[in-house]
């Protein structure tokens, strides 16, 4: 298993948070009217991952070049942790030609073949794709793994169950990661799901199912390391459900009235200050790490803003493979 480095885990969580915070500001900066998601320099819907950093950082710490991740509509934390270039990612979010998909995909459709990273707004679509990656890795005789990430709501989709079934049947090197942030958009688990933990569902397919509570990055790190080591060693698939927290709305502009009093508790559930305290960082260290992350994010925003906007002619390019 990869050696745990607490400072590295913390820095990566801060890097993601500062990226998301900057996108949050930039997204709203010129939305006029505020409800028009097509307005402004960053068009389209925006799903940010603040609060869910422990899941991405704890899992991706064990991945190496050539491993694959399929992510859902809330993808930034896993993309950054998996090594997707921040400049190209920011440019894609801004819809510029230097973006990962030449500006055609936007924030929900980040495709980076070099890093085997993909995501989609179609719920649960990444599960079968991850199985495809894993099948290829196995047939090629490599020790690479595929990680399929989605929320707890996605686990009610047929694609989830079909993927677990085939992954178990074919003993694929895939780890199914479920980020349980308690809300499938605005629907709680109790209103949609007969199972109260998706870790239980793994048992039906004969694979290990583990649930990590408390949004604890070190607990995620250990469990993910064990799951990924199993997959690399040919022991087959496993399922890891991480109980995390979505600090912001489902999408930017979400008033979150459905969360009620829970909204008052979110600050105290923020995993980043909690981890800084747990590993004994000083205020100066925290500020320096944040400044370093901001510097990288500033450069990415400048890169995006300096990049060309697609022309009408570009619409016909790179449409078909």
């Amino acid at each position, binding site marked *: 298993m990869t050696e745990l480095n607490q400072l590295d885990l913390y820095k990566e969580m801060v890097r993601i948070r500062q990226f998301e915070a900057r996108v949050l500001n930039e997204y709203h900066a010129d939305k006029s009217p505020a409800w028009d998601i097509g307005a402004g320099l960053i068009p389209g819907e925006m799903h940010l991952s603040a609060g869910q950093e422990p899941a991405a950082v704890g899992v991706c710490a064990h991945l190496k070049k050539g491993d694959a991740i399929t992510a859902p509509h809330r993808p930034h934390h896993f993309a950054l942790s998996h090594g997707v270039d921040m400049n190209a990612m920011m440019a894609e979010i801004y819809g510029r030609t230097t973006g990962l998909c030449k500006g055609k995909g936007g924030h929900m459709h980040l495709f980076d073949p070099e890093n085997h990273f993909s995501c989609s707004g179609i719920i649960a679509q990444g599960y079968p794709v991850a199985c495809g990656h894993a099948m290829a890795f196995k047939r090629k005789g490599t020790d690479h793994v595929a990680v399929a990430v989605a929320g707890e709501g996605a686990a009610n989709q047929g694609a989830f169950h079909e993927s677990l079934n085939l992954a178990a049947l074919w003993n694929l090197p895939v780890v199914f990661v479920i980020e349980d942030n308690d809300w499938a958009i605005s629907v709680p688990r109790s209103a949609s799901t007969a199972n*109260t933990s998706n870790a239980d569902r793994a048992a039906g397919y004969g694979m290990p199912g583990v649930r990590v509570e408390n949004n604890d990055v070190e607990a995620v790190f250990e469990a993910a390391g064990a799951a990924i080591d199993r997959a690399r060693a040919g022991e087959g698939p496993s399922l890891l459900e991480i109980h995390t927290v979505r600090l912001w709305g489902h999408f930017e502009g979400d008033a979150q009235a459905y969360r009620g009093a829970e909204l008052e508790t979110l600050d105290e559930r923020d995993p980043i200050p909690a981890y800084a305290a747990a590993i004994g960082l000083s205020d100066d260290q925290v500020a320096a790490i944040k400044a370093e992350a901001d510097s990288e994010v500033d450069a990415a925003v400048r890169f995006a803003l300096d990049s060309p906007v697609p022309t009408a002619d570009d619409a016909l390019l790179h449409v078909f493979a």
Partner: protein
Amino acid sequence: MKDARAVGVVANPASARDIRRLVAHGSSVTAHQKLNQLRRLMVGLGRTGVQQVLVMGDRSGIAIGLVEASGRPSGAGWPSVEIIDEDLTNTAADTVNATRRMVAAGVGVIVVLGGDGTHRLVADECGLTPIVAISTGTNNAFPIPLEPTVAGMAAGLVAGGRLDVERVARPAKMLEVRCPGSGRSERALVDVAILNTERIGSGAVWEPGTVEELFLCFAPPDGIGLSAIGGHLQPVDRHEPVGLAIRLAATGPPPSGAPTQRVAAPIGPGLIAEVDVASWSKLAVDQPVTAATTSGTVAIDGERMFRFDSELTVTLRADGPLVIDVAEAMEFAARSGLLTGPVAT
């Protein structure tokens, strides 16, 4: 006012879902299985006269599922079910709070379904209220697998006063660990392990190479978990007034010392470790022992709990929770004819 016809039920929704399914071969006990066990428990409780059950609330649908099931035709004859769901946190604090409320309500017995950790939390709060300990965890030493129907019958007979609790229940031993430097104090039902790691991480202990010292309440040769290491050095019964202190040598140089014995111990499901032991000795009741290790992490009943960097003392106590021996209770019930009678004509 004690209502002997009421029984408390604590079912840990989180047991059997931790990392030991990945690093060992731990099985899963799903929420549906736990609810099914509670249904069987209710039949046993209802048949022996229990009128009311106070059940710990949870966010896994177990308690609510039990209430819903009690309204079905198959729930006829069950006790009424009341959920203790104030201030739910979805953490171990729910077990602590629920146990306190059950004790305050004067239940006759508390039935616990969970692992060693769940039972430890109940043990800290249950006082003189006897418990029935049912294993739904991964590698449990304290609770044992029991058929809940039968466990419910035993609990009901005790709660209703038809079985004398002093005849069928005995106090468990506990280990008290104190860290004067930090003021931290915890109690264990099975083992206290001192680890040479700084990581709390996922909690579970499965790497024997991290264990420096081990203190055991009891050491069954047929057990599983860290206590199995002691079981093959010096078997200690769960009611014998001694414990064990073991120094392991797997971590290398002195002060652990050269190994004197190697034990093949089943420390987890499907996980047998070769453990080198430097020395071991018996623990006497109420005699504090100072740990040789002065920094690291303390694991209580197989779960990493807290870091320390000063002196630690460990003391074996004989005043743990009163645990109903279900086999003994049912044998006494049979010999007393409590569940037999003439055929009605």
